[in-house]
């Protein structure tokens, strides 16, 4: 029964907007409820019935695809696209961030579709030659031709950024059939893009190879039917445990999982970055940017900063001064990038308050009494115990004496490490890479770089979305097996 005025999360199936058989979703823990087509009724229509049906995407050149994406990007302008406007308003309730930041994310969506940007990263990570045809190379007394084919891929996307848009672009560039399973924290933005595609070019192969729908993650009735090798070849799952735990039981030969695990990020400030008041102040602004951007809802946000101030009295005085400046700089970030958080995690607040009450000998807490975010400055060379809880613009500065202690900052779940000054040393990057770090940036530029250009979380997801096919042509000098004499036969294949 759907007698409510809940917003609708339409399904978009290969060019068709589906708004029938609506059932209610969401509503946990005070979240909004929304309506979406009953997944049980549409599940059989979600997959592409045969991989051979990818053929129509091969009538397009990469230029054709980029033209399509470019035109789409122009039509996604927030100022003129009513679907985007509606989705933006509705996302205020579902997004982990605040309205000014959500509006900023929507406003930036066209940027992702700029053809030059897409061409550059696709060239880097796959290479247009491989996407457009067979690339021949002589090797081992043969000529091999390699081509990157698209696949039938299901994307379980995260809801804390424009991941739906990214998945649509990646699917188009690789000539894949793309099914996007929406998360409950962003059920609207991807649908707005898909509807714009249908309006723009309903019969275009890229439109016809996109399916967007919501079902509750872990709904066995749906997933058992859909997650089969005869329906899809690849699952790209963001969010690790939260999404992957439902998926692993369906993984079998013929169905490959790419898991983009949940990550957190850290920063390092070297001795040289603290030498003058001007440098210290610059370091503070850089830290504030990497902590505060998107209200620290992303994996690329810094949560712990190792500062090589030393732990003696002078060192602590320096890091405490740095902490005050980080706090001030964070409050000054523009509202499209950072605001007072939507809701300060009560569990985190309990931890921070406890330090203020019982941990004053070891931690200096700056701010945080009004839910605006806080800077916790450790007064010894170790981070807070609740380091995994750091969120909502809460960062822990940790003073260290030696560069070896900085290595504690990284483990397998570390994505980005911001470093200041830049010449802190490639040696440090090398060692941190071994311990788990996956991306290094100049401190302050975690959200101000080239974007997802290839490697992500130590894998190359776009390359893995492709099916890499090889053709082998023997060199003229190769002796055929049927001409070998007895005792000389060897098989290398």
């Amino acid at each position, binding site marked *: 029964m759907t007698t409510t005025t809940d917003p609708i999360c339409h399904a978009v199936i290969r060019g068709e907007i589906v708004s029938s058989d609506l059932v209610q979703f969401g509503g946990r823990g005070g979240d909004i409820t929304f309506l979406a087509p009953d997944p049980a009724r549409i599940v059989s229509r979600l997959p592409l019935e045969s991989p051979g049906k990818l053929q129509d995407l091969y009538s397009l050149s990469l230029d054709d695809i980029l033209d399509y994406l470019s035109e789409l990007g122009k039509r996604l302008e927030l100022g003129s696209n009513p679907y985007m406007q509606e989705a933006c308003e509705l996302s205020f309730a579902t997004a982990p961030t605040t309205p000014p930041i959500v509006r900023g994310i929507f406003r930036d969506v066209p940027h992702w579709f700029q053809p030059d940007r897409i061409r550059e990263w696709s060239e880097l990570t796959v290479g247009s030659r491989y996407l457009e045809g067979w690339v021949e190379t002589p090797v081992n007394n043969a000529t091999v031709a390699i081509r990157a084919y698209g696949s039938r891929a299901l994307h379980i996307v995260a809801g804390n950024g424009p991941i739906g848009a990214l998945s649509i672009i990646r699917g188009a560039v690789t000539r894949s059939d793309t099914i996007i399973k929406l*998360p409950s924290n962003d059920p609207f933005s991807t649908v707005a893009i898909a509807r714009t595609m249908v309006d723009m070019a309903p019969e275009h192969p890229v439109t016809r190879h996109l399916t967007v729908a919501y079902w*509750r993650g872990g709904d066995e009735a749906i997933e058992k039917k859909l997650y089969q090798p005869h329906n899809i070849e690849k699952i790209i799952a963001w969010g690790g445990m939260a999404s992957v735990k439902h998926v692993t039981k369906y993984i079998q030969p013929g169905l490959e999982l790419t898991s983009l695990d*949940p990550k957190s990020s850290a920063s390092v400030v070297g001795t040289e970055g603290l030498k003058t008041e001007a440098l210290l102040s610059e370091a503070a602004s850089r830290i504030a940017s990497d902590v505060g951007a998107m209200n620290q809802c992303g994996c690329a946000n810094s949560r712990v900063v190792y500062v090589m101030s030393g732990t003696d009295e002078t060192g602590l005085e320096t890091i405490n001064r740095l902490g005050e400046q980080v706090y001030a700089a964070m409050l000054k970030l523009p509202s499209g990038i950072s605001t007072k958080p939507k809701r300060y995690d009560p569990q985190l607040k309990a931890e921070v*308050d406890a330090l203020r009450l019982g941990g004053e000998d070891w931690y200096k807490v700056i701010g945080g009494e009004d839910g605006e975010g806080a800077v916790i400055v450790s007064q010894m060379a170790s981070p807070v115990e*609740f380091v995994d809880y750091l969120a909502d613009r809460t960062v822990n500065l940790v003073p260290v004496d030696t560069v070896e202690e900085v290595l504690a900052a990284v483990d397998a*779940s570390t994505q980005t490490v911001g470093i200041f000054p830049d010449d802190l040393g490639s040696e440090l990057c090398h060692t941190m890479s071994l311990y788990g770090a996956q991306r290094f940036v100049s401190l302050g530029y975690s959200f101000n770089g080239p974007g997802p250009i290839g490697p992500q979380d130590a894998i190359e997801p776009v390359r893995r979305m492709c099916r890499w096919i090889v053709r082998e042509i023997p060199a003229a000098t190769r002796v055929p097996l049927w001409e070998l004499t007895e005792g000389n036969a060897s098989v290398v294949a």
Partner: protein
Amino acid sequence: MTSFCQASERQAAGWIEDPLAHFGYSATRMHSMDRSEQEAVQLAAMNILLERRRAEIPVLAKLADAQGIARLDSLDAMAPLLFEHTVYKSYPAALLAKSRFDQLTRWLDRLTPYDLSAVDVSDCTSIDDWLSRLRDETPLDPATSSGTSGTMSFFPKSKLDYRRCFEGLRLQVLQTFGKPPSEADLNEKLHVMTPTYRDGHSSVGALARYCMHAFCKGDESLLHTALPYKLSADLSWLAARLRRAAAKGDISKVDVPASLLARRDEMEQQLTEAPRQQAAFVREMVETLKGQRVLAVGVSPLFHEVAKGGLAQGIGGVFGPGSRVMTGGGGKGIALPDDWDRTVKTFFGVDRLFNNYGMTEMASLIVGCEHGHYHLPPWVVLFVLDPDSGAPLPRSATQTGRASFFDISNDGTWGGIVTGDRVTVHWDEPCACGRATAYLENRIQRFNELQGGDDKITCAATPAAQAEALDYLNALEG
């Protein structure tokens, strides 16, 4: 009015001094008090304690100063002065890694009214050493508990807290509501059988030791435990830190002293052998204690396993009249059949199973009534807080929210604690058991278990994700 206030203050002083004695050790009396009178005494007692503890517990003084609260004019005015459980783990874990028990003692000293400054802990080399020293040389018997994040809390419980807790338990499980306590209810020596440890610093480790006083009346020959050793706080800490390091993908980063890491085999051996020892123990006790009056305390799956096996061999009704069986919790993921409780009751020969609600941070343990409700003793003031705003919900009708308590009987610590439990309270609906006090429904859930599974996916590593990873590891370890 003045005499009413004075009467309240006199009662309040009695509750603080010795709540069980104040009610004549009668379960009936403590649950038959007029609600408005009860609340007046609660307010008076909390005001007395606020003034007294503020001078004695520095962390409370700091909080009260920051909140600008010196006196309460209503029960709800206490809400901002309740401690989050996190206060009891607000020390840096590095202090444990470096065995800095001097600093840990100074930290603990700020959370208790007892003066710990004269205790010399300079020669303590382990957590067990340190906690034993405090137990031996002060009125405290500090309790440890370790959460899912791998952090250990230290709660400065006093020996008096434990004694009151277990005297209170005796009173609740042996007395019949509506009848005055009999001589046997108060003083009979019982066998205690619990498939746990002989000793230890966590609540499960302390159970046998204090049951020995409350139920065996000091006669150690009546105390039967499965595991003849002390539950080591150090080994619990080691296990927690290993899991934490494993969840972060690098076990070599485990931050414990080398001497403790060397005990890893011992820890693993204990973990492997304990289940078999426990099952064997319960089977043995069934023989030893046949026909005796026994208090059996243990987890449901173990009791069920033994009971099922026993009934299959035609053994049943093993304990003597007046025995009590108390069950609780048990391993996650162990599904018990619907009739598990009937199996356990038939096997042990009891007509009901007792369960309880309590926590390390609260001196009082609340036993479920005949109708499965947790009735609050009058000296435990409940606050049900709005889970988002933290504001107290009305003290009437039925309310669901975050449970917080002020236990007037807490001796070693400030009595106010905010829990992570989601509870439903019935403030003024009578319970069929006859107790007049407000009660909690027995469906109590942890808020952090209620999160997750909501299909919100983000690329950022969240505590829920970490906890799931830890659960996964724990499940692998069985």
